[in-house]
């Protein structure tokens, strides 16, 4: 594998996490290719071969709709995330594509200070390698099927 691929993928993951953790939702769709897919699911549904997503978007317009709705329609208590990522495995598929699996923890911090381990799981990604790598597909597989109150900000 080209020695630059692993750090390039890890940089993409890190930039993605920082954007969400800093509340820069408008930047979120741009981490995906024009037709990029984003899906949050649970390990249980995945293992049982059940297709139900918790959240699903196909292409940047749908990703932007999610952001627009979070900004202007949905009501949720002020909150922040802190993403912690580890164990990033990268496999180069060809000159232009890579596959990545990474572990994540997402901690949710409410305005009151209440801090909760909100989600843990795996990112399973297909990435287009270029000057600025992007997700062609990002599947977020949550370890637990249980979600506290609501899932507003994407994982």
């Amino acid at each position, binding site marked *: 594998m080209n020695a630059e691929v692993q750090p390039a993928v890890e940089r993409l993951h890190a930039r993605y996490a920082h954007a969400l953790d800093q509340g820069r939702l408008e930047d979120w769709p741009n981490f995906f290719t024009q037709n990029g897919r984003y899906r949050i699911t*649970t390990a249980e549904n995945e293992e049982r071969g059940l297709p139900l997503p918790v959240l699903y978007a196909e292409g940047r317009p749908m990703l932007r709709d999610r952001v627009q709705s979070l900004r202007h329609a949905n009501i949720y208590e002020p909150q922040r995330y802190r993403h912690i990522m580890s164990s990033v495995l990268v496999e180069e598929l060809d000159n232009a594509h890579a596959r990545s699996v990474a572990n994540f923890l997402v901690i949710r911090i409410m305005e009151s200070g209440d801090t909760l381990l909100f989600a843990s799981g795996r990112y399973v990604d297909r990435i287009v390698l270029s000057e600025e790598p992007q997700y062609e597909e990002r599947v977020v597989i949550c370890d637990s099927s*249980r979600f506290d*109150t609501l899932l507003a900000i994407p994982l």
Partner: protein
Amino acid sequence: MLQRTWPAEGLTRVPYWVYQDADIYQREQDRIFRGPTWSYLCLEAELPEPQSFLTSFVGDMPVVVARDAEGAIHAFENRCAHRGALICMHSRGKAERFACIYHNWTYDHSGNLLNVAFRKGIAGKGGMPADARPESQAPKKLRVQSVHGLVFGTLSEETASLEDYIGPDILPRIKRVMIKPVKVLGKYTQVLPNNWKLYMDNVKDTYHASLLHLFFTRFRINRLTQEGGVFVSNDGAHHCTFTRMIEDQGDAYEKDGMRSAGSGGFKLEAPELLEQEDELGDAVSIQILSLFPGFVLHQIRNSLAARQVVPKGIDRTELHWTLFGFADDDDAMTRRRLMQANLVGPAGYISMEDGAATGFVQRGVAGSPERASVIEMGGSSVGAGDSRITETAVRGLWKAWRSHMSI
């Protein structure tokens, strides 16, 4: 003994102690969940073959739901006769019998105690006396009945048949959705930081939808100006509300200066997410149906789901969502249902606020158990109507609740 008195105004006031009081919670478990009501357990489709089982709840009480070798569905308390341990620790599977892990007492698919390990001891030593009656503490058995593929259980001999319990106003609205065999698309659980009744009265509150869930109105998807209506069963216990598919071009929200008005020209860039096929043939875009005490069936465009409301203490409730389609769905319909899954659940465009709003009530009333909700939209009665600017179904919930609780 409880010393609680309902406000003199009647059903237009709901005192906040109903969401806070530990004695009330225990009495609800006894009189409502373990009393003469039917609790939703699962879909028949979740028990696909003989000897399939899953674990579920009736209020606090854990239950096993299982098909026997002949395919009949049974349900029994998930509590071993011996020491009270869970008989079954798995959420689903297939089993010839159930064995408690603690001392290996075994049960059949209807909860009958089959075998007590070393009951007669070994080589004449140990074991139980010949007149011991461990069966006297056997797990409770539920009466089980299904309606259109939905499985319910009750612990009371007094409960009317399931169809009579649901009644002639609501039953046809279940049949309207459950028109053929279903297939499960997946499940998840939403944990709500509030009393279970706050979720049930949210579901029955036809007035809140377009005011709390701004996605509806911002993108002009559902407004109270659209044609719709509400049904409530005679005893107030169950309800059904619906909205027709006609697009609203009016400006009632704008005239009232509503926070949820569609100002700012918001439009979805990818509205195909919402495209509905009128598969039920009656041009209804949304139908929300609830059965007392804790079941909700929804059709939101082509999203179909059963929601089971499981109380987990005074101020904690689990909402178990099971989304489904029909067994004969083609790929395009499955895709539509998965797209529209974005509308519901913990990340749902039009449902994520429910957990927040009901949690806000739980927190807001912390210092005022003696104060009460004002529930006067649509007057003081409980009944059907063609306006959804009403709280008639919420009053129905409290009518039924008070009757069960003798409060």
